[in-house]
């Protein structure tokens, strides 16, 4: 189904990426990172992208956010093709706040010199909301990420890593976007905070916002994604319902990925299986 077909009515996806190619460098140094990838995210849907170092997953996120230039293909955000947007157009798009983001290091998505309150209300003030109203909303969203409003006058540097990442999620939410892109949002957190943030993300599923959750860790995505897309060497090698991808992986790489996750179960058989899959991927 092409994006044109879907454009009718409100079942248009919040994000549709079609045949996207991205490369770095030029001439002999040209290196293809994404090699014609397509993926769509429906309104309110949670899609996980799984990939390891060098798979192109962060490039995918950064291209959709306009931080990396698309070489080829279309990126439809709520129906608008942004792949060839000029900086000014990106600026206007960001101001509308349709797409928000959360990075691995919350200090990257929070201004270190702004108090938590200012960070949270800024996107609302930019869109013309009056401050008292904006602060009211900021408080509400801080509650949604299970943080106390005592934190509002603090600076990001005064918060723990887990708290900061929750603030980053709240900041992404206040603008009430259609889509939040999360790039390794829990990878830098210890296990208790990881579980906490994953619970919060899971809780967002009913709020109507779509999530694109990018991670190297199948375990953290499997619990909250409706669908999982597996990125390997710049291509999606498998896309399917989360439960199916985890339980009946079909592509050799996905099978290797599932089979490589350290398990508390017996390991000897798994070793032989992995060896076969590696041989398969090499050819």
């Amino acid at each position: 189904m092409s994006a044109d077909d879907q454009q009718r009515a409100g079942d248009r996806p919040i994000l549709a990426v079609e045949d996207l190619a991205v490369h770095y460098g030029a001439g002999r140094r040209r290196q293809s990172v994404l090699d014609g990838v397509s993926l769509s995210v429906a309104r309110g849907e949670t899609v996980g992208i799984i990939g390891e170092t060098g798979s192109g997953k962060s490039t995918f996120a950064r291209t959709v956010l306009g931080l990396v230039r698309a070489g080829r293909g279309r990126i439809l955000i709520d129906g608008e093709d942004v792949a060839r947007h000029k900086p000014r157009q990106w600026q206007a798009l960001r101001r509308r706040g349709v797409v928000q983001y959360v990075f691995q290091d919350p200090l990257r998505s929070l201004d270190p010199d702004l108090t938590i309150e200012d960070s949270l209300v800024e996107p609302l003030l930019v869109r013309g909301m009056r401050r008292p109203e904006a602060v009211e909303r900021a408080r509400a969203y801080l509650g949604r990420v299970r943080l106390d409003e005592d934190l509002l006058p603090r600076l990001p540097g005064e918060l723990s890593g887990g708290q900061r990442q929750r603030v980053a999620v709240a900041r992404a939410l206040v603008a009430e976007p259609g889509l939040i892109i999360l790039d390794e949002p829990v990878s830098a957190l210890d296990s208790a905070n990881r579980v906490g943030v994953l619970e919060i993300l899971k809780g967002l599923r009913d709020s109507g916002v779509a999530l694109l959750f990018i991670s190297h860790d199948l375990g953290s995505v499997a619990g909250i994604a409706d669908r999982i897309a597996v990125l390997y060497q710049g291509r999606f090698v498998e896309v399917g319902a989360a439960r199916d991808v985890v339980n009946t992986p079909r592509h050799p790489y996905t099978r290797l990925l599932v089979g490589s996750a350290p398990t508390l179960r017996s390991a000897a058989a798994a070793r032989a299986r992995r060896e076969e899959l590696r041989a398969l991927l090499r050819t």
Partner: protein
Amino acid sequence: MTTTQADRDLVAATDVGDSPTATPTPRPLPADEVVLAVRDVRIRDNVGDREIVHGVTFELRPGQAVGIVGESGSGKTLTCRAALGILPEHFTVSGGTIEIAGEDIAGLTPARWTALRGSTISAVFQDPGSYLNPSLRVGAQIAEVVRVKAGLRRRAARARAVELLAAVRLRDPELVYGQYPHELSGGMLQRVLIAAAIAAGPRVLIADEATTALDVTVQAEVLDLLADLRERTGLALVVVSHDLAVVAQVCDEVLVLRDGEVVEQGPTEQVLYQPRHAYTRMLIDEHEQYGLERFLDADADADADADADAGTGAEADADADGGRAGAPARDREFDGVR
């Protein structure tokens, strides 16, 4: 390329073990010889004036693997460092004994330590990049170890280094030999470090968080390599990790260390399935909370491969036909790279 084919042959030769120089010389060892004995070892911080490790005991025979699990600060790394004779300043072994291949380390001279390290006991750590000189080709660095430890001449040392790179399953060992550390991925670097660690044919290899910084498929590759070396050469392993599951992949016996105390110790199966200590149970719970197992259907583990190979059931068949529009719930796109 002919070199590549020759290298493949070399790897193959290494596999069956009919090339005596290809693998780290598996010396004939009596199977019951204890290659590393750690007995009630206590480690003291002389500056803080307190005991950090309160009695660790285990024995390793050729081909055995013992795992030490614990958080940072539990004393697992100090225990390893004590066995390698490289405790940080101010730390001393304040009780118990450590024997390497029957030799008590308490009275070892620096010269004797130098002889033991590498050739009898060896180690790899978390950040492989920091153990290599960034301005030297990796092959030359391994050849140097071979030259010094095994006393080979330059040309022979070079050949041996290439063999070692093949033995750790690097696909193009000649190519890797001439590369600089920054040109290699984390997984490749860790293999290079393992190659250097086994260069002098040690009997014990300590892997301290050696796979922690790696991607999950690469971690599995390195763990499989260790298991493989253990089977092929009788190398005994000490695998140290904060992750119980990682240790469970490779080891026969597990020690759970907490605040310097061994809270649980026993055969891996027993520790995993009948944990006695609350802390061990917590580690298992934690793994189950965000590990992948939680999302695996009860019987999928065993059947996954059969399904994927044969395509059991109507649903799988529909997918195999290309996921037609009629099956939206299972519309799996497929981009074969076979």
